[in-house]
């Protein structure tokens, strides 16, 4: 019994602490990979006004392979040093590396819904305090010199099956999007998974 208790205690230590150590190591590696991706990315075509972006929205970077770094994410509300590399994919192997971009959702700055999932406990818990986000808070994405700033509209709690939150027009799967949205999803409560915490933001156009 003593042995079993010790192993369980070690497992808790592993989940709460060691997964974070591993995620931090992965983030260091991903930051380096992202820097190289920025350096080798084809220079962006000039932002055109053709797709209803008269004030110039930076073009999105190429979509990376699953598990590869996509772009940088910073949220001032969560701390001045709060900075994560977003990877492509929302499977548990990808989310163990950092916040993940939902495949099938648009790229940054594009018309539609750029959706990202992240852990709220364990694995570095990037979205631990996502519940503190308030309307008006800024969410910044960047890829080298390209950047996209979103302003939070609202946050709310929903069911895990509410896939409509990552639709191009949330809740309207068939609708044609006209707005440039960003959606963050994580679990709620923090140590459970009964519900989902959702943060929705809209691109601040112009730079």
């Amino acid at each position, binding site marked *: 019994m003593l*042995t079993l208790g010790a192993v369980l205690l070690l497992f808790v230590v*592993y*989940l709460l602490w060691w997964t974070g150590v591993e995620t931090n190591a992965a983030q260091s590696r991903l930051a380096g990979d992202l820097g190289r991706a920025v350096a080798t990315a084809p220079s962006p075509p000039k932002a055109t006004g053709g797709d209803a972006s008269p004030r110039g929205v930076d073009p999105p970077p190429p979509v990376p392979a699953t598990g590869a770094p996509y772009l940088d994410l910073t949220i001032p509300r969560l701390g001045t040093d709060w900075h994560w590399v977003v990877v492509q994919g929302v499977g*548990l192997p990808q989310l163990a590396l950092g916040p*993940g971009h939902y495949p099938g959702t648009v790229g940054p700055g594009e018309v539609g819904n750029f959706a990202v999932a992240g852990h*709220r406990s364990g694995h570095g818990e990037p979205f631990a305090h996502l519940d503190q986000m308030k309307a008006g808070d800024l969410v910044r994405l960047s890829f080298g010199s390209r950047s996209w700033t979103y302003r939070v509209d609202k946050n709310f709690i929903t069911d895990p099956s509410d896939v409509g*939150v*990552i639709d191009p027009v949330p809740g309207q799967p068939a609708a044609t999007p006209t707005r440039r949205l960003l959606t963050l999803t994580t*679990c709620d409560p923090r140590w459970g998974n009964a519900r989902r915490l959702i943060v929705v933001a809209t691109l601040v156009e112009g730079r």
Partner: protein
Amino acid sequence: MYAALWRMLPGPTVVRAATLLVILALVVLVLFTVVFPWATQFVPGQEVSVD
């Protein structure tokens, strides 16, 4: 169980204690690198995406 292990180990007390520490370290290493990563998939409360 641990008394039997202690009797099985050769050498004086100091050597036995050192051997035990090495065994313990190996067990923890295997737990952290093999067993726990595998067991993580059965831990509820990790789903953060909508699907």
